[in-house]
């Protein structure tokens, strides 16, 4: 039991889903270590500026244990008037990014952190300005800064290859620096967060509880529904809101539709990266049908806008159900045909087998999630271990492979989508009648809630602290890629340059999820082009 480990700590909250404990500076490392050894891995870390309430900064370390089906939150607060707390990165490798993020955004100082460098904020961001602190106005404009010209150190005996920020295989601005000897990658470094949108600040400052699901959905263009579902679940968890069962089933169906569409997209991208464009085209053709299903049920092909705190916004009628089942058969048939062909192609398999291996031990230390973890021999799936929506009523298998290479990731996703087809059929079959939404609830002030969903890429976790009065005090979404990206440099080492894009793509990276971001020029108010649309398109 978790109480043996948390002996002597103040238990703030304990229910069958999570345990929140306040830990002191003296014993946090021991407790974190003990949790890790007991099978808890580091899921997410949220820094909070609690000065308006108690004059301190707080850091919430969220651990996930899939065997016990429980989240353990270690809360540590800084002394009054000082932002310093001890770092747990020396004992838990996976906490590195979360602590650096809190350092950047809130100015919390983590003593003993092995790499206290900037992670999110750009290098030319002024010192001592922390955007997520409560006294920083969300609409404040910083004076324009000059770019810093840093003299870079060059490594000896290797060639440096910049993979990014603009590279045709990444599809989003992100920067991997590969150090290459001949055709082999000897080392790799990652610098991301070029496209941070400041969504958390926006939500905390000027959005109401029920506007945020639509913002959360825009965290990612591929897996938006799981973000809005996770956010809604977090609020429902914090406020104890009952969600009608029919709504839970509809959420499940849309989450699985999204998984199928995302995995098919991934298969297509992998084919393209392997130079097999025919596979790419045929898979994306099959993917069209699943988009049609989404359009049928929600009215939108992507960014469904179906989730809302307390339920969903649209019903699946008998007529829609029948059409969906028909379309579903078509997707299943077509995608099985194409994917079976690809899996049997010798030269494609040769390029995936034994490439980009992630050993189980390192996977556990970093805390990778989703298909990445399952292909490295870690049997984890939020849908089964922490059942949400209607997953407890559904019957499904979780594929696990030991090899940890790109082909194992291919197979995990391959088996997963066919499980998803069955799950959608089961859910449509067993959907109970009833209400779609429960809108009679009160939001209690200052309460922590956690919402998790298994996105196509892995566990998404949204932590929410309520403020009452229809507002959120703190919202911290963490997408799966955030946990998976630190594993990429490990996977790249010792492989060919030719395989680098494939290895990066094998985690199904979603950079904008990780950054909570998007790049739209109109957002900055800068007009790129004014004139006839036709000419503008040609110019851009």
């Amino acid at each position, binding site marked *: 039991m978790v109480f043996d480990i948390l002996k002597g700590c103040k238990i703030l909250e304990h229910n069958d889903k999570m345990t929140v404990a306040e830990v002191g500076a003296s014993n946090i490392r021991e407790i974190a270590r003990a949790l890790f050894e007991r099978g808890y891995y580091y899921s997410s870390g949220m820094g909070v500026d609690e000065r308006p309430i108690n004059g301190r900064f707080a850091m919430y370390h969220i651990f996930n244990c899939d065997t016990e089906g429980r989240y353990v939150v270690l809360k540590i607060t800084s002394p009054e008037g000082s932002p310093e707390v001890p770092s747990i990165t020396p004992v838990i490798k996976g906490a590195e990014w979360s602590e650096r993020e809190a350092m950047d955004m809130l100015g919390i100082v983590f003593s003993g952190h092995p790499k206290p460098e900037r992670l999110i904020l750009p290098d030319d961001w002024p010192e001592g300005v922390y955007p997520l602190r409560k006294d920083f106005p969300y609409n404040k404009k910083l004076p324009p800064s000059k770019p810093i010209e840093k003299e870079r150190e060059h490594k000896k005996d290797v*060639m*440096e*290859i*910049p993979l990014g920020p603009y*590279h*045709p*295989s990444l599809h989003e601005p992100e920067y991997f620096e590969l150090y*290459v000897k001949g*055709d082999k990658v000897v080392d790799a470094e990652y610098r991301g967060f070029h496209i941070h949108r400041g969504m958390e600040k926006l939500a905390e400052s000027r959005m109401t509880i029920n506007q945020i699901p639509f913002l959360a959905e825009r965290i990612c263009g591929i897996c938006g529904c799981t973000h809005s579902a996770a956010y809604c679940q977090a609020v429902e968890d914090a406020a104890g809101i009952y969600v009608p069962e029919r709504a839970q089933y509809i959420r499940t169906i849309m989450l699985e539709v999204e998984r199928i569409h995302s995995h098919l997209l991934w298969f297509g991208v992998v*084919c*393209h*990266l*392997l*130079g*097999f*464009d*025919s*596979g*790419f*085209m*045929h898979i994306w*053709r099959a993917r069209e049908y699943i988009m049609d299903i989404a359009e049928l049920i929600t009215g939108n092909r992507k960014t469904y806008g179906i989730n809302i705190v307390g339920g969903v916004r649209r019903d699946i009628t008998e007529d829609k159900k029948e059409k969906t089942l028909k379309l579903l058969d078509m997707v299943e048939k077509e995608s099985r045909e194409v994917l079976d062909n690809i899996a049997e*192609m010798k*030269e*494609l398999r*040769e*390029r995936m087998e034994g490439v980009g291996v992630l050993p189980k031990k390192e996977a556990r230390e970093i805390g990778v999630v989703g298909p990445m973890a399952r292909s490295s021999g870690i049997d984890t799936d939020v849908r089964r271990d922490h059942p949400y929506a209607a997953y407890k009523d559904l019957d499904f298998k979780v594929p696990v492979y030991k090899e940890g290479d790109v082909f194992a990731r291919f197979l995990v996703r391959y088996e997963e989508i066919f499980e998803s087809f069955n799950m959608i059929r089961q859910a449509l079959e067993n959907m109970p009648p009833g209400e779609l939404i429960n809108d009679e609830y009160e939001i209690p002030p200052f309460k922590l809630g956690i919402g998790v969903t298994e996105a196509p890429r892995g566990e998404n976790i949204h932590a929410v602290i309520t403020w009452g009065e229809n507002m959120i005090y703190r919202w911290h979404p963490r997408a799966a890629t955030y946990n998976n990206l630190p594993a990429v440099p490990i996977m790249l080492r010792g492989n*060919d*340059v*030719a*395989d*680098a*894009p494939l290895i990066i793509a094998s985690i199904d990276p979603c950079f904008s999820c990780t950054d909570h971001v998007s790049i739209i020029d109109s957002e900055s108010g800068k007009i790129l082009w004014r004139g006839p649309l036709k000419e503008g398109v040609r110019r851009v």
Partner: protein
Amino acid sequence: MNAVYAALNLIFIVLFAPLLDGIERKVKARLQSRQGPPLIQTWLDLLKLFRRPNVRPRESVRWLFEPAPAIALVSVLAASLFIPSLLPGSLDTWGDIIAFIYLSTLSAVAIALGAFSTGSPYAQIGSHREVSIIMAEEFSLAFIVAALAASSGGLSFSRLFPLQLKVSTITGALAFAVMAYVAGARIPFDVAEAEPEIVEGPFIEFSGKGLGMLKLSIYVKRLLLTTILLNFFLPQDGTVRVLVYVIGLVIISVVYASIEAHYGRFRTKDAARFLKRFAIVGILSWILGVVGW
């Protein structure tokens, strides 16, 4: 007379090579259940490129970078003068198959050198790959050419075209068909360009007219390799030949394009390994040719 033939052949090759690429694009698109671009799309692309200026990277070596596209294009065009294409060969007394192979390799080397001179890491990797593939390719090609020469009793085109029907010439010609596929930098052998991996490799720093010339040189090279292959079997005179030749070009292009649509890209070492193994076919047909089969 010869000068007129040469001019007509040149015009045909330059005009028809991009069109052939257009046909290949259409075939690939249909195989991928796409509509595909219009047949003249490759021509439109080239015209657009030729209207744009060249940009030279500041770090590049000027005397290597600037003439590279012209050398690449001129060398394949010069090679085209040796072989009979639409009309009988115009300059075939001046060059033989060895000269042809050297000129077409020169175009690849010019691209690689121009790319090496830019200092871009992607171009470096791309050129490195290009050179590795050329090395592996030459090894097989040497035996194939030797096999054809041994059975026809000479290296000049007048002896090689058309081939006498023997076991060694047939295996040699079939092996040449594979090499024509490889030397045309088609998937799975387009490792030097590999857009998702190294961003077009050698071509990354070229732009405008230079890029246009490089692309045109590749299309011309593909057409010339197919032309040689067809000449092995077609009669050298007659009006029927012209018709059969053009139809043959289209058919071989369609075959190559459909093969291309069914493969993924090799790694450089896999491609090199394949080519080295393939050299055995060349060696065998050479032995057959020497024995007199």
